[in-house]
């Protein structure tokens, strides 16, 4: 959610703050998440492990780096190539956010597979996971829109988010094999 908010900021200088710019950003995030859920669930059926979860997180963080580095150049290119501001902002948003959000979407279903040990408690685990991820989204939204933008540049906040993801990814990678939930 924090990235989605910052996405609005990144697009505004090139595509403005018309309602369809937000529409384009939300569409891309939802689409990418939905595909990510599907892929995450699928991949969880092949030898799931905490290490691999770390790999997904790492991929999500790493795929945000081009957004950070090439963002403005890409936006200008798209704006010139697609004069219609609606499809221009849709394409721009997809270029910057489709891949990182797809990987983010993979995390939840994959983590469900790692947490669930028996059917009786599966609902509870899924509920806890939804809680953590949606509560985290709420916190990220509030923190970013109320405070972080007042203190830091947009790129700085993005770097910070990437760094957090990478730290979590490395922790997951370093976790020993017996945390592996596959049976």
């Amino acid at each position, binding site marked *: 959610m924090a990235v989605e908010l910052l996405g609005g*900021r990144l697009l*505004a*200088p*090139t*595509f*403005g*703050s*018309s*309602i369809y710019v937000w529409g384009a950003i939300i569409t891309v995030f939802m689409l990418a998440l939905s595909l990510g859920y599907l892929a995450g669930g699928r991949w969880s059926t092949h030898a799931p492990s905490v290490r691999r979860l770390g790999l997904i997180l790492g991929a999500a963080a790493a795929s945000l780096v081009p957004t950070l580095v090439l963002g403005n150049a890409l936006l200008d290119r798209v*704006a*010139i190539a697609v004069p219609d*501001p609606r499809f221009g902002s849709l394409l721009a948003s997809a270029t910057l956010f489709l891949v990182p959000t797809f990987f983010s979407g993979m995390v939840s279903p994959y983590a469900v597979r790692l947490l669930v040990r028996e059917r009786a408690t599966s609902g509870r685990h899924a509920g806890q996971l939804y809680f953590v991820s949606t509560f985290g989204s709420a916190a990220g939204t509030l923190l970013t829109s*109320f405070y972080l*933008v*007042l203190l*830091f*540049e*947009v*790129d*700085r906040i993005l770097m910070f988010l990437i760094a957090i993801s990478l730290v979590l990814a490395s922790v997951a990678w370093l976790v020993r094999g017996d945390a592996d939930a596959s049976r």
Partner: protein
Amino acid sequence: MRAGERTRAALKASFVALLACAGCGTSASADGMKLVHAERSLYREVLIYERRGMRCMCFTRECRIGRQTCMDPDHPDRIVMNYPRMMLAALYANPEPRSVLIIGLGGGTLPRALQQLLPQARIDIVEIDPAVIRVAKTHFGFTETANVRAVEADGRVFVKRALREERRYDLIMLDAFDHEYIPEHLLTREFLAEVKSLLAPGGVLAANTFSSSRLYHHESVTYAAVFPEFYYLKKDNRVIIATNGPLPSQEVLRANSERFVEEYRRFGFDAAQMLALFRTTPDWNREARVLTDQYSPANLLNLR
């Protein structure tokens, strides 16, 4: 969109009136403010209120967060608010612009005045909200002509496109406001640099801003980062007048102001009074952080 003067006291009064009137089920509140038209748009509700012979456009109920624009329907040529008067003082810096760009239509006060002052000039107006364009036409006497056209677009997107098409304007007026303030992406160093490049040599920029809140300092240093020197006029609002090239001297301004005495009198204000408002001495904190595309929490800064 366009913001008029801040009327905190009036807001408070109307809020109290609103409380007193809660549930009384009429569109006229205690101080006689009457809702004459409401139009939902993609962005907001555009509301027209009438009160004591004055018609105002607002984006919030009872005009709680300021008025966008006002006019006197019985004397539509009269300019009743201070900020458009100060904006028109930009003509003292360049009295004969042949092309004008206005970002933010509001009730069309500025284009209507400029149409009369400069019948030959080509005037482009950018307005993001189609409902505002409709209401300006139905309730504020705004009309499009061969020389005057209103384009429905985001101001920043329009400026970028105009730059790519290598268009130039002799006068650019920034007057885009939402219900709170100027949209953040129209308040950054990068945007002002784009606007400056869109000015013809010697072209003039006039920008309508507020003068309260700590955003004032940030906004001032942002303008100073792009325009090393500029004039500003301050009443309830602050209007910045900058040029693409050397700033005209006070003598030049005075000489030019004399050409508008008659017409401005007809508009209901005094040309010399506006001239007396021109200032250059900074009255802001020059250490404030410049607003950029990367750092633009303008509306948060405007809270305090």
